[in-house]
């Protein structure tokens, strides 16, 4: 009871300013002002009823303050204020708007009297007021609070509110709140059965726990009915669980796609395993960090744009580093893929240590812009914005690369070199140039991936290391020289991983995936989308 009331009060206070502007403020103000002359408990009770009758949610602030003992009348004019105690007196706030109204000494203020039976009345009044609020969001929030902490005494108020309600979603929530209240009341069995059915049809987790706790205490046919409603709900929730796993899988898949796609390009075109690929991702993440630091220091207003600024910069930084690595090291090692692997491993160690020396070994704080924080629900599915954006971003990067590969002359050259290097060279394609640009492109894409991953992962010098094995698995699984292979590889590994996790646990799931890939490679040594033709073996 008490918890419910405090929750409602808190909620109402938080939401009241939203709806305050709509109501007839003068009438409410007049009613609240009467607290200033209410000398006895019965006077206060009368005024509470009068204020409740205005139906204006703006009055909730005053009622909440009254229940907390923070509503005072100033002497001698009797003006009513919400107060906050300080050492030598009170700070005064307007009882309706909460605006600061200066301060007053302790002896100038008289507390409006309140007792527990009054508090109960106030709680009901607040509930009714919020249920009657103009703003549907306030009504919905009030109904939700009532649903989650059922109280038999609220049934009448809910009945009245349901009769007046015009918004379908809010009415459904109110009906559910009423049903949950009926279950804890001493109403007839028929009504309770109807309530169980109504709750059972909702099928969300909160209602499930309500019904479960009811089932534990109920007796006879009601218990059976609740039990069957619970099992129905569990079936529905199981499907939502599948959907949730699929979503997590897609989300993981998009991360893998971002991390692996640059690797797939360089490996596909040049046959080069770039062990420093993970460090390109890390460079992208640190570029984001630097951009955000500069924005925080100099242009705080641009913070929401920080990622948009970081993406091209990360591409340039990582791409430039990639170009230097290709021109400085890799081009001397063509035809020796295993040695390339070692040399790029050396590069990755140097880059890691360089970042550690410059930025320190600890995690760096990269913030989420406002449009990437928070979450929303689809049915029983909670989707966070940053995950959704990363999925969309990964697909966008994939589409752009697909376009570059299939619709530009550079892409044509890259594909030609992938399929048959010597023939392409004979046709006048400058293969060293294609190699250099391809490596820069692959590294740049890794940098972009770093921007996205900085939003969901720790930005530390070890960031790249945690993705490198996974990226290899995706590339090896998907097959080289084909972007679609990487896409299918990334998403199937992501989804498979998330579906294994609930049964095997996170670590064992990952081990299973690795074992599956090792076995898969035996069957298809060149991946899911293997290149065909004689040039492959050469």
């Amino acid at each position, binding site marked *: 009871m008490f918890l419910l009331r405090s929750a409602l009060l808190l909620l109402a206070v938080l939401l009241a300013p939203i709806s305050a502007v709509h109501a007839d403020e003068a009438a409410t103000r007049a009613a609240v002002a009467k607290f200033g002359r209410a000398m006895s408990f019965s006077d206060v009770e009368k005024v509470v009823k009068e204020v409740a009758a205005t139906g204006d949610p703006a009055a909730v602030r005053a009622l909440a303050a009254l229940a907390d003992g923070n509503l005072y009348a100033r002497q001698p004019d009797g003006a009513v204020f919400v107060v906050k105690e300080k050492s030598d007196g009170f700070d005064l706030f307007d009882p309706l708007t909460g605006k600061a109204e200066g301060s007053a000494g302790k002896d100038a203020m008289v507390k409006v009297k309140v007792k527990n039976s009054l508090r109960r009345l106030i709680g009901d009044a607040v509930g009714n007021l919020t249920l009657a609020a103009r703003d549907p969001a306030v009504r919905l929030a009030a109904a939700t609070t009532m649903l989650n902490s059922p109280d038999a005494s609220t049934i009448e108020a809910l009945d009245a509110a349901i009769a007046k309600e015009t918004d379908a979603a809010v009415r459904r929530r109110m009906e559910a709140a009423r049903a949950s209240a009926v279950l804890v009341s001493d109403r007839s069995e028929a009504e309770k059965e109807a309530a169980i059915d109504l709750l059972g049809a909702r099928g969300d987790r909160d209602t499930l726990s309500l019904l479960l706790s009811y089932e534990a205490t109920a007796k006879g046919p009601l218990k059976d009915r609740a039990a069957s409603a619970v099992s129905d709900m569990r079936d529905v929730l199981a499907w939502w669980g599948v959907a949730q796993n699929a979503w997590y899988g897609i989300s993981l898949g998009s991360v893998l796609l971002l991390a692996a796609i640059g690797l797939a390009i360089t490996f596909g075109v040049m046959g080069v395993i770039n062990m420093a690929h993970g460090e390109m991702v890390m460079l992208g993440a640190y570029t984001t960090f630097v951009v955000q630091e500069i924005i925080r220091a100099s242009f705080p207003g641009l913070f929401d744009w920080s990622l948009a600024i970081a993406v091209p910069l990360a591409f340039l930084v990582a791409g430039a580093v990639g170009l230097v690595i290709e021109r400085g090291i890799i081009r001397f090692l063509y035809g020796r893929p*295993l040695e390339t692997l070692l040399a790029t491993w050396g590069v990755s160690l140097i880059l890691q240590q360089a970042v550690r020396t410059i930025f320190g070994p600890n995690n760096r704080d990269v913030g989420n812009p406002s449009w990437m924080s928070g979450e929303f629900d689809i049915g029983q599915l909670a989707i966070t914005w940053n995950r959704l954006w990363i999925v969309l971003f990964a697909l966008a990067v994939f589409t752009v690369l697909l376009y570059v590969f299939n619709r530009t002359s550079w892409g044509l050259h890259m594909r030609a070199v992938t399929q048959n290097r010597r023939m392409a060279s004979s046709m006048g394609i400058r293969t060293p140039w294609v190699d250099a640009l391809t490596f820069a492109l692959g590294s740049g894409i890794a940098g972009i991936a770093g921007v996205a991953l900085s939003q969901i992962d720790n930005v530390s010098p070890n960031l790249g290391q945690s993705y490198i094995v996974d990226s290899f698995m995706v590339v090896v699984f998907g097959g080289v020289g084909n972007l679609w292979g990487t896409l299918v590889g990334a998403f199937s590994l992501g989804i498979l991983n998330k579906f294994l996790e609930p049964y095997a646990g996170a670590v064992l799931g990952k081990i299973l995936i690795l074992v599956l890939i090792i076995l898969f490679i035996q069957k298809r040594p060149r991946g899911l989308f293997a290149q065909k033709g004689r040039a492959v073996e050469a």
Partner: protein
Amino acid sequence: MIVRALADGFTWRVAAAVLVLVAAAIVVPVLNLSVPAGSALHVPTYAVTLFGKYLTYALLALALDLVWGYCGILSLGHGAFFALGGYAMGMYLMRQIGSRGVYGNPILPDFMVFLNWKQLPWFWYGFDHFWVAAIMVLAVPGLLAFVFGWFAFRSRVTGVYLSIITQAMTYALLLAFFRNDMGFGGNNGLTDFKDIIGFDIQSDETRAALFAASALTLALGVVLVAFFVKSKYGKLMIAVRDAESRTRFLGWRPENVKLFAFTASAVMAGIAGALYVPQVGIINPSEFAPANSIEVVIWTAVGGRATVVGPIIGALVVNWGKSWFTGAFPEFWLFALGGLFILVTLFLPKGIVGTLVEGWTARRARRASATAEKDVEPESFGKDEELRAEAAE
């Protein structure tokens, strides 16, 4: 015939390496135990343990050299075999603690008591006997390598693909051994050892003995590898490395050759791990980290792959450099290691020993052509050259 093969395998470099190792196995313990601590000749115990550790690394590098240098299989997962051998030894050492653990349980190691386990898991049975542990040191890495290689080589997974799946193997094992419910001590691994075959593992005598054992095992490994690569099978291995398809078309089975080399190499790595653990006193899952396995590759590359002595020199030089660097400039060790990877692959693809051998061979060829023309050269010059060359060897 065997004598002949041994003689073929014993170049002067191999002979020198074996002699040095055997001498070290005798001299270092003597200098450590018999020479008083104040003397200039005294070898402190920490140095004995440190170099004993390096010798096990050298054995690991030699094992990798067998598959990479001679058979062309770049394994990025050899640290896994090393660690498995180490865990087998660690399990034996754990059982030797007996009731001297923190919880005083005579059967269960401390971490199992901590996890509230009631009885020993089945795979710990027998590890209280040294001979069981010794067999496991050989069998577990060997079996894993055999099964892994059986699948991989038969389906002709080669080149970087093979390297990547060996890395996946060690990564999967890393994750597995981090799990507490695997029964191998989880994150903390196995440590706090007391005895090995009845001797106190902390005592100077035991440490000196472990050093000698490491040196002698390495010497034995050198002899075996040198003998093996000069044998007919070794030639076949090199043929598979240089032209796998051609070897197959000539009627050999490259997958069997590779499988044998891979399994033998894994067993060697396992032995190295088993010698490593009692000297460092701990084995934990980080030994499975892919980065460790790649570091082994660089030891081999620095020393010179496809040489018998090279990996040993590489492992000693790089690890000694690591100890020195992490003491003197801890910030720069990764720069140095990374630079080493790049410089060695770019400028020293044959490694230290390989480059030196190449230099000598070229010089000998010059000398041969010089002696062929000795009609025109003054006679004494040719003799001088020959003497100098011999002196250099």
